């Protein structure tokens, strides 16, 4: 430990010495292959009572009918061959369980949370609901109705408008550009939801993540239930898209702020430039001290927040800057973002800033690996891309070795304003 003692004189203007992170251990889950080829990944060693089971289905919204995908996900636990929605909810309440369903463009993730001694009991109810879902007409109508209303609320938000236009233009030519429209709600159809369920849930279970200090008997119980389901969905057709560039503005009368989305196609972590670009992206806009935050929030006060991100899908990735700024500072914000691109292209990142960002990223990785839940998420992030945990050792090595020249080269290659898609709303 530190040699500081309370009797030592404290010089507040001198920062305490920093120690680097020596090592991060990445712990793989236990893997069980189910009869049907789907994989079950299990993490234990929690030293507390919590547990969860997470099922990943090839049932994402990047299809020709995103509303059906969304309604199906929303109705999974709303009536089965033997129980009504209310009965199911009561049965889950009886064991103190919670669940949520999260739908992304590529998958539908269904998660059940309970205390470890209740998880299997809760899952038995849940399993039956999920795999024998009958989509009662009344439930379908109610959900269509409430989703339509929520959509009309969302539609008023400038951030929603900008995000949609951005996705539509960036992912043009692919199913990822298909987004729910208000008129879709009139065409919602129960039989299509049933068909989607049969195709994407009954045959679409890709993997299962289990966390908790569970008994062997419980583990067997999960395996027996899950063995009946798996994935025989053919791999999607090769991904292709025709991303658009250039500026589009969506005017909204009376808006106080404009939402901005600026970005371009990029790559995911399978690309050789990914790790180094992560460092560049962090410097630009992915932490509180980033250049965009320092300039546009902390110096100019144009916004409450601005950030840049690399978003990854299994087949592609993209880069995006997002913010909401006062309407009168919209053009000035564009200028400042361009200015930050130019600085990265023309000036080498100072050594102190680069060191700070490297340390910051290492600290964040250490945090992301802290505890079984976080560790399993880290694992899932690479597993989805067809990689394994050794990726993180590679990431650490890349972060440590990247230099200012490499970052400048990447900025010149990827951060060109004229190649960006620029959307504003409001």
């Amino acid at each position, binding site marked *: 430990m530190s040699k500081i*003692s309370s009797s030592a004189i404290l010089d507040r203007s001198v920062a305490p010495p920093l120690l680097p992170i020596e090592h991060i251990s990445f712990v793989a889950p236990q893997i069980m292959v189910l009869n049907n080829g789907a994989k079950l990944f299990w993490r234990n060693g929690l030293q507390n009572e919590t547990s969860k089971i997470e099922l990943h289905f090839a049932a994402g919204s990047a299809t020709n009918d995103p509303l059906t995908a969304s309604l199906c996900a929303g109705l999974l636990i709303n009536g089965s061959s033997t129980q009504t929605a209310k009965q199911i909810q009561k049965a889950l309440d009886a064991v103190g369980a919670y669940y949520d369903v999260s739908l992304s463009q590529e998958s539908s993730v269904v998660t059940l949370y309970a205390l470890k001694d209740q998880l299997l009991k809760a899952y038995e109810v849940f399993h039956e609901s999920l795999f024998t879902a009958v989509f009662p007409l009344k439930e379908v109508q109610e959900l269509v109705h409430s989703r339509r209303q929520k959509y009309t609320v969302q539609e008023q938000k400038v951030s929603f408008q900008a995000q949609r236009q951005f996705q539509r233009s960036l992912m043009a030519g692919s199913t990822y550009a298909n987004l729910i429209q208000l008129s879709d709600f009139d065409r919602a159809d129960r039989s299509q939801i049933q068909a989607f369920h049969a195709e994407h849930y009954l045959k679409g279970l890709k993997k299962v993540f289990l966390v908790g200090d569970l008994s062997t008997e419980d583990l067997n119980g999960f395996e027996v239930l899950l063995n009946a389901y798996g994935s025989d969905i053919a791999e999607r057709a090769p991904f292709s898209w025709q991303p658009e560039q250039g500026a589009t503005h969506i005017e909204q009368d009376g808006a106080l702020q404009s939402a901005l989305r600026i970005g371009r196609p990029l790559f995911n972590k399978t690309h050789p430039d990914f790790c180094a670009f992560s460092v560049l992206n962090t410097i630009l806009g992915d932490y509180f001290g980033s250049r965009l935050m320092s300039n546009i929030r902390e110096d100019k006060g144009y916004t409450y927040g601005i950030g840049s991100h690399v978003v990854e899908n299994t087949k592609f990735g993209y880069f995006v800057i997002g913010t909401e700024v006062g309407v009168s500072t919209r053009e000035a914000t564009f200028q400042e973002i361009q200015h930050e691109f130019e600085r990265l292209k023309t000036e080498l990142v100072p050594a102190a800033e680069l060191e700070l960002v490297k340390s910051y990223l290492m600290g964040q990785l250490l945090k992301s690996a802290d505890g079984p839940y976080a560790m399993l998420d880290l694992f899932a992030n690479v597993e989805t891309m067809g990689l394994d945990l050794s990726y993180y050792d590679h990431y650490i090595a890349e972060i440590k070795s990247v230099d200012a020249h490499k970052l400048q080269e990447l900025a010149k290659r990827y951060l060109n304003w004229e190649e960006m898609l620029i959307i504003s709303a409001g």
Partner: protein
Amino acid sequence: MIAFERFTLANGLRVLFHKEPATPMAVVNVLYDVGARDESPEQTGFAHLFEHLMFGGSKHIADFDAPLQAAGGQSNAFTSNDITNYYDVLPAHNLDTALWLESDRMLSLAFTPKSLEVQRQVVIEEFKQRYLNQPYGDAWLQLRPLAYQKHPYRWATIGKNIKHIEDATMDDVRAFFKKHYHPGNAILCIVGNFELATIKEKVAHYFGNIPAQAKSPRQLTAEPPQQKFRIKTIQRKVPAGSFYYAFKMGKRLSDSYYLADLLSDHIGNEKTGILYTELQRKKRLVSEITAYITGSIDEGLFVITGKLNPKRTFEELEAAIWPVLAQIKDKKMSKSALQQLILKLRTAKAFQDQGLLNRAMNLSFFELLDAADLLNTESARYEQISTTQLQQYAQELLDKNRCSLLQIQPK
């Protein structure tokens, strides 16, 4: 069970330490006993503006965030009507960095005019982004002054008027700091794999020589008991009518807090709660409806909120909702339903207690309320509740004369 140690420095700083051997990270949480309720009615939004200024550099350190980021950590804060809470999460071996930063900004801020100018602008943009440029964004700005007429809960943390933020001066800011930011008004909580002796030594080293200052007594205007139903209807550019029925409930530490918490879960649940089954499912008046409590330290609010279906009116809802609330008062909940609620709370608490940051924040908050031990003993307060008590409490709570109703009508 979250085990912890407690000690107090000579200058009045209360310190909590919770050892967690399984993590390589550390959490440093600093809670200041100041919230929007401590503001003057002429200078609202100050506690929150001040939270922003706390990141603008302190007496000996030009930039708060950079050293923390260089240590592999990050920081944030929030302001509520009751408290201002700051936290740092960083690799445990760099704990000193967080203590150094937090102690220097507790000692004194840098107070640069530039920082005030910029953060004033940032907060105004935050006001627009979160409250003004969102459908229903200003609901609570409207509901608070309806439900509270005297108590400072009548304004939101962002402030009741953007002008208060625009008018803030350097002198105001200095005075606010002097009054509220000192060791006797703070609770420091550290979580991580450390030894108590080390923590004592480090805390004394960094915080020990910050001068003590007397805690200024809090004299809040009490909210007089509400005698009559209040209703306010506003028109906004929104797609659907929205309603907020706010009933007065007890203080955070009163027995009624626990009763109200269980009751809100019970009636507000989707699919099984009576609000859903009667008003959404059977009568099709609403497209969504739920119930929750604010959980504030002083007298809080029990809120039933949702959105009207198209073509349905507030009058129809008014006619239907009171008979449903009467049913809640008339019918005792079953024992098994109560046991289920308790079990759900246990599950939720187990998940919350899992997070290091949650543990640090909750220990600090409970220490402020009364004693950090509450984090471990509070479950017992729920478990003692009977179905009879719940029914009696529902009768007291769901009194129309103690309700304030805000309706937001589409323009």
